[in-house]
């Protein structure tokens, strides 16, 4: 039996396009339901239609024989298809009465398969797998169901279907749910001025239901329909004054003019020139270090899975995030913050020291949470400080804390710009928090460092040159003249947003960097290539 095309990767990945017939069927599907439909559901239905079409075709190929089921009765000369015999077709040549001491009487047919004859039970209305109700050929052949096919080939089907629907003016979309433009109700433009004012007065986001009520579209909240929610949300999403800032499953409308620019545009300090790396090249020491560093550029498979029930997580703050008041979204931190794949999410940070709350933004698209600059400054937290993130009973409130100590003067790696060079010196500085000694970076003049960072960005020197420049100034701080890989990562990020994977790869592939034990490295300028 030949393999069905709808069961193959080739069909869904190469051949399939959502054509006019598909779009017409989807149009009718939405029209029939008169409800917005999720793209996933549309896709599964589309796959089902393709599979059904092939099923009909396959049946035609099987000479339109009836599928044999023991419970049915068949006539002489009738052609049958036998699913449990590799879909062989045969012709009924005779019938007789059969009997079984347990089942009683039934009929037996003799079937001719090109010269050989076999007997089969008919009018046999007892438990038998072939008597099951779903007797499509696809089911009997043990083929993947449309739902299973979608799971397997979603990566190909989803974007193709989405692009086709988005390119067609008949369909409108909000949060991956599709509806028909013709079915959208008309709204007076003034209603959206009311929505704007309502959010402004509320001084915070409003749910779509609250806005519908404020806009006077219903008299009672119970009158709000799903179509109304979709229609209003669709209109708001296409009005540049409004932003959806709700987490997945919740739509909360806010005003774009109130939202900070960082809700949509990542701070320049965080922009990474993504350099791929291969952790298979790393030794055990580097792999452990990679998993320890909290950096959004690290590949998912290189990070130890976090206990999903953990109530808190501790991360080490790096310099770029410290400067712009953000935290990285990594597999360790992501579960603690409300997020959405569609939009930035507005939530509340709760200060673990004071209980005061202040706004935070989860920007999943760029892997950071924003809103901590004032909190970092108020608590004088350096890059390298341990930051604790804790859950609360309210998923829209996240506690942020640090490990406070009595203020003491510790020796800190201070970054400064001397002449046209970035330098580091060990200087005593007052600190009142616990920190990672290998990662801590202090600064005496942040604005000078910013200028230097801007110039370094413009010069765009290679990672190797960057590390070669840093090694001499960092190795002077250590009597052994070695530099720890974590320290190198932390220092490099003062002037370049760069992930630890890219740095470690550079260390491994350049002969001028020589590994010592336990994550420490030395540098031999004579071996620089």
């Amino acid at each position: 039996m030949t393999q069905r095309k709808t069961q193959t990767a080739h069909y869904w990945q190469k051949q399939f396009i959502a054509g006019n017939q598909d779009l017409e069927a989807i149009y009718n599907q939405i029209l029939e339901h008169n409800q917005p439909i999720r793209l996933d559901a549309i896709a599964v239905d589309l796959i089902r239609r393709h599979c059904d079409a092939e099923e009909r075709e396959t049946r035609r190929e099987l000479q339109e024989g009836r599928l044999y089921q023991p419970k049915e009765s068949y006539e002489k000369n009738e052609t049958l298809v036998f699913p449990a015999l590799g879909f062989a077709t045969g012709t009924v040549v005779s019938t007789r009465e059969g009997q079984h001491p347990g089942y009683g009487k039934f009929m037996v047919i003799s079937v001719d398969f090109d010269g050989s004859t076999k007997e089969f039970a008919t009018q046999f209305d007892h438990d038998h797998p072939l008597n099951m109700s779903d007797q499509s050929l696809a089911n009997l052949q043990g083929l993947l169901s449309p739902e299973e096919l979608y799971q397997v080939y979603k990566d190909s089907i989803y974007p193709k279907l989405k692009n086709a629907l988005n390119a067609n003016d008949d369909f409108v979309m909000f949060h991956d749910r599709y509806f028909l433009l013709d079915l959208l109700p008309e709204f007076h433009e003034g209603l959206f001025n009311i929505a704007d004012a309502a959010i402004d007065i509320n001084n915070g986001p409003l749910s779509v239901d609250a806005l519908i009520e404020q806009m006077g579209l219903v008299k009672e909240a119970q009158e709000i329909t799903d179509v109304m929610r979709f229609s209003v949300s669709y209109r708001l999403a296409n009005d540049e004054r409004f932003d959806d800032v709700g987490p997945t499953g919740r739509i909360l409308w806010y005003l774009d003019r109130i939202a900070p620019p960082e809700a949509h545009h990542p701070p320049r300090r965080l922009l990474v020139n993504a350099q791929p790396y291969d952790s298979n090249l790393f030794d055990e020491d580097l792999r452990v270090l990679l998993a320890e560093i909290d950096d959004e550029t690290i590949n998912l498979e290189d990070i130890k899975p976090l206990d999903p029930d953990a109530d808190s997580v501790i991360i080490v703050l790096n310099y770029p995030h410290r400067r712009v008041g953000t935290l990285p979204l990594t597999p360790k931190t992501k579960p603690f913050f409300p997020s959405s794949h569609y939009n930035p999410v507005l939530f509340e940070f709760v200060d673990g020291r004071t209980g005061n709350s202040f706004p935070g933004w989860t920007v999943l698209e760029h892997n950071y949470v924003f809103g901590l600059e004032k909190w970092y400054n108020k608590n004088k937290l350096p890059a390298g400080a341990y930051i604790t993130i804790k859950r609360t009973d309210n998923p829209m409130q996240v506690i942020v804390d640090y490990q406070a100590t009595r203020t003491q003067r510790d020796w800190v790696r201070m970054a400064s710009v001397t002449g046209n060079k970035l330098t580091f010196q060990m200087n005593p500085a007052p600190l009142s928090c616990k920190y990672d000694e290998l990662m801590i970076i202090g600064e005496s003049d942040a604005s000078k460092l910013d200028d230097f960072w801007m110039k370094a960005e413009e010069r765009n020197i290679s990672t190797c040159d960057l590390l070669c420049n840093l090694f001499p100034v960092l190795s002077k701080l250590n009597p052994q003249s070695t530099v720890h890989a974590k320290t190198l990562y932390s220092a490099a990020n003062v002037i370049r947003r760069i992930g630890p994977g890219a740095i470690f790869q550079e260390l491994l592939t350049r002969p001028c960097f020589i590994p010592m034990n336990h994550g420490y490295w030395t540098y031999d300028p004579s071996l620089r290539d």
Partner: protein
Amino acid sequence: MAKYIKPTLDTKFHIDFSWWQKKGQNLRSYLQSHACPPCKELAQDSQGQIFDWVNPETGEVFQIDMLWHIIHTHCSEDPTFLDSRIPLTSAIFRAFILNGNIPLTSIEIHQKISKKTPELILRTIGRRQVYKGIKPVTTPV
């Protein structure tokens, strides 16, 4: 002759009644060796009787000696029917009598008869030479 495909631990086996028909061997005589004394007594009345056995997967019908049904119904309650002292091949045959000849893998057979190992069972019934009709399930017509 059908092409021999080496069975694996995942291959399902059953008693192929057509093998008995083709070989002209007397299934009743062989079944007698598996019948306990009460079954043998019951079987005396069924001498010459056959019934239509329905394949639990394909719906195919074979006319089988009534003794099969007597052993199947009577001995299924008898805990000594799969006694550890009987030979492995007999135990395998009996496992199929008890379960109504529903196809089983070597692993499943081992779970039922609790004798030897699945690998040894596979080596025993997975050979080219068919023992008492116990064959891999195939779907040829």
